[in-house]
């Protein structure tokens, strides 16, 4: 058996899905299932007084009730939907803007590239939340839409900077030059070589941005700058539970668990996805 045979034998084995991927997929899938189901059905009417005030968890109210006697489990389920909407929306907006600007910078002349890089550094110096607050404050009142756009724009700077660096590294490779010589256009180079090569790393970062977007939305809602009622964002649930956190701690713990579990789930999923997306890592995993 030669060295080559050995390498082939090892790499031909199916990529072993890491446990991170499985756990991440289960957690995110659960949130997705719950979030989607609230479009058709919730245990109780989310705005109705369905029990006593600040009840502890029971069979009727799995997560207890809030100050107004509303079922917390129902509100948290709806919170899943809102968190996922914001996460997906912000990642799409941040990804599209960020990847586009990053690629432009990577291909641009030195002057334009320097200008873009400096602009991105300034944007990144602002905390995401502060930037999102500024955008929300300067728009027509808070809504789910403005929150998504604001968080998406705030995230796009980080995505752009990463895309620029990754694309530049790929652009310096001989196979790009060879491909250019054989007559590939810039767009062709981007689609055939650059995106596939930067995708695994970018994917992990986008997942990170997804998690940050979920947290940012919760923070905006906590500050009253997120989706207005009756949208039950986890951030607003946390804020409402704040006053009674000592007498009824579960009102703060339950949405907190939901928030943390989704963010962790997304990150685990991304880690697993990277190993599957990158064939040069399969051998080792």
């Amino acid at each position, binding site marked *: 058996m030669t060295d080559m045979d050995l390498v082939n034998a090892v790499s031909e084995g199916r990529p072993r899905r890491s446990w991170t991927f499985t756990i991440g997929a289960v957690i995110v899938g659960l949130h997705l299932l719950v979030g989607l189901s609230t479009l058709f059905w919730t245990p109780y009417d989310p705005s109705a007084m369905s029990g006593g005030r600040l009840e502890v968890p029971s069979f009727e109210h799995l997560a207890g009730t809030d100050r107004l006697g509303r079922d917390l489990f129902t509100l948290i389920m709806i919170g899943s939907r809102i968190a996922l909407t914001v996460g997906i929306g912000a990642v799409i907006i941040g990804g599209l803007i960020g990847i586009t600007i990053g690629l432009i910078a990577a291909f641009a002349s030195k002057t334009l590239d320097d200008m873009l890089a400096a602009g991105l550094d300034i944007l990144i110096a602002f905390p995401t939340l502060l930037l999102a607050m500024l955008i929300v404050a300067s728009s027509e009142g808070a809504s789910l839409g403005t929150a998504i756009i604001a968080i998406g724009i705030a995230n796009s700077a980080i995505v752009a900077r990463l895309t620029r660096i990754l694309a530049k590294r790929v652009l310096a490779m001989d*196979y790009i030059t*060879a491909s250019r010589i*054989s007559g590939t256009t*810039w767009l062709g180079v981007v689609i055939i070589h650059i995106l596939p090569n930067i995708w695994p790393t970018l994917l992990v970062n986008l997942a990170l941005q997804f998690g940050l977007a979920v947290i940012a939305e919760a923070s905006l809602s906590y500050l009253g700058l997120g989706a207005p009622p009756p949208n039950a964002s986890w951030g607003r649930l946390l804020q409402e539970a704040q006053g009674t956190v000592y007498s009824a701690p579960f009102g703060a713990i339950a949405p907190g668990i939901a928030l943390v579990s989704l963010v962790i789930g997304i990150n685990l999923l991304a880690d697993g996805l990277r190993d599957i997306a990158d064939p040069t890592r399969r*051998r080792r995993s």
Partner: protein
Amino acid sequence: MSPLLDIEGLSIHAGGKALLSNVSFSILPGERLGLIGESGSGKSLTALAAIGLLADGLRPSGSILLDGKQVIGARDRDLVPLRGAVAAVVFQEPLTALDPLMKIGRQVGEAVRRRARRDGGATDATSVMSEVLDLLDQVALPQPQRIAESWPHEISGGQRQRAAIAMALACKPKLLIADEPTTALDVTTQAEILKLLGQLVRERNMALLFISHDLPVVAGAVDRVVVLRHGRIVEHGPVASVFRQPIHEYTQSLVAAARAFDNALEIAP
């Protein structure tokens, strides 16, 4: 016969510094020219300038006619169709010459498909694949089917370089530029690749611009040599006369070093 590549008074400047000064040479169709010089002498820059792919910030001046068309000052859009039809390059480092995230078959297939679109040939998956396998066979890769389905990291350096040559051939170029294609390989593999290149160039009547810092390697592969030092041409002529009677002291030292190496090999048991 008009030259395929005609370089006249080419200089390249970067931030006020001259990296290449007044370089002139030409290559006729089917001719094989060697470009020799030590590391940093400007060999790769000359090759990249020839196809209009100099990095940003490097300013060329003079004249470069590639298949009769001026490259210096041309817009990239006008160069794209010219490049593919005229020239192809094989690089020094086989590891970076192939996209790590594309199987060999698809990678060579991309080049085949681009050529087919250009010439109006068939671009369906079956004909592309059969040409890919044919090309892999021509560069003497064993088991073309298996190689086509491999990732670049799954084959050896010599095999990667053969795959890169297959990609270059897929373009059916009139001029093949080989930028130190064997430097990263061991001596045996080096000799095999050189033999393969020589054979392919002869069979297809391609012109060859062969870049190397290794005089003996160049000697067997080309008809004429250009010796470059610090960005200037110090010697230019048929390979035999340059070797027999090197004029410039730099070339003399190169030839002497090569002789000493040969003698050492003969004395060795």
